[in-house]
């Protein structure tokens, strides 16, 4: 990926979040939907969420230079939709 790539739309961000999450939780990506809660529905604990954040930062930092998810914002990311909205807001504004 390079910084000259076309901007990501929201559905592309969802696919990136879903693929990384499926990889970390070792589940079928098709079973992940936006409405699911990380903790209650996907059984993802705090370490898994940090793994997700690290993976997203690595995936997206080249496309959106210096892309970073702030630690203080993590507490607000309770569902897959929260994460997609957050990441999309960041890459859209960069």
């Amino acid at each position, binding site marked *: 990926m390079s910084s000259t790539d076309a901007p990501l739309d929201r559905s592309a961000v969802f696919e990136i979040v879903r693929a990384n999450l499926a990889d970390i939780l070792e589940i079928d990506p098709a079973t992940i939907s936006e409405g699911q809660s990380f903790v209650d529905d996907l059984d993802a604990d705090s*370490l898994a969420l940090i*793994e997700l*954040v690290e993976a997203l930062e690595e995936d997206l930092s080249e496309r959106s230079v210096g892309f970073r998810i702030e630690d203080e914002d993590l507490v607000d990311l309770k569902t897959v939709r929260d994460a997609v909205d957050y990441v999309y807001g960041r890459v859209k504004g960069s």
Partner: protein
Amino acid sequence: MLPVAVDAMGGDRAPGDILAGAHAAAALGIPVVLVGPEGLADCRDLPLIHASEVIEMHDDAAQGVRRKKDSTLVRAAEAVRDGKASAMVSAGNTGATMASALFRMGRISGVTRPAIATPIPVPGDRPNIMLDAGANAEVQPDWLVQFAQMGAIYARHRFGIAAPTVGLLSIGEEPGKGDTLRKEAFELLSTASGIDFVGNVEGRDLMRKTADVIVTDGFTGNVALKTLEGGLKTLFHALFTAFGSSPEYKAAADALLPAMLPLLAEVSPDTYGGAVLLGVDGVCIISHGSSGETAMLNAIKLAEEMVQGGLVAEITAAFAG
């Protein structure tokens, strides 16, 4: 073999004793690369990967890794990930070492959580392996089955135990003993394939040959390990104080010393070099925070042994599919 990446700034005695251990390992022919700040004194001819930050012992593990991207721990893990090093060794912040390895090297596919496997000395016999010694304070019952599988592979690699037996640390030998976690794990371990499960073991069995591999959650494992280490240290201190309390005792103790010293070495954490983080996609050795030259040398030797023996490849194969 690619060099072993040594965190030059990790541990209470860093960098002096860490460098001394690294030089001793290099003198034995083990390739070593240091990870530390530019201008690190006494590197001599050892190569250095620059890292400007240190995750301190008091730093939060995950936040430390996220905020200190140019830390020695993160750079050491990246060196393994990027094929510049074959293994990493650190006597620094245990949680941050685990987080660095997990976030940078990644997990072996199929492993839910990595676990810290530490040798527990058994006087006169091969050590036992206990895991988890502190990576996961809270665990699920099925994680303990994975710990058992990884621990058995490690016991074969580390101590040549051909068919390791596995015990579940609990508060009684009977299957019904323990909390919900232990009872559910007991059922799973009893039916798991490829594990020679011998049932519950108790704290008194840690230093006996009741089971070669002892599985537990990281909270209990860490308490058990520190209790053993502290208890042994206190006991030996009391013994030597008693031996020196009169000239007669001292003379008798001097005569016993040749028998005592090997025993001391056998139960010393320095002898084993450190614990191994099992389940990450690379060799990661976590040494005691108080590691001196000997402990660091043994940790680097352990790293080399695990790389040469293909420990990670065997765990990967066991969890494939």
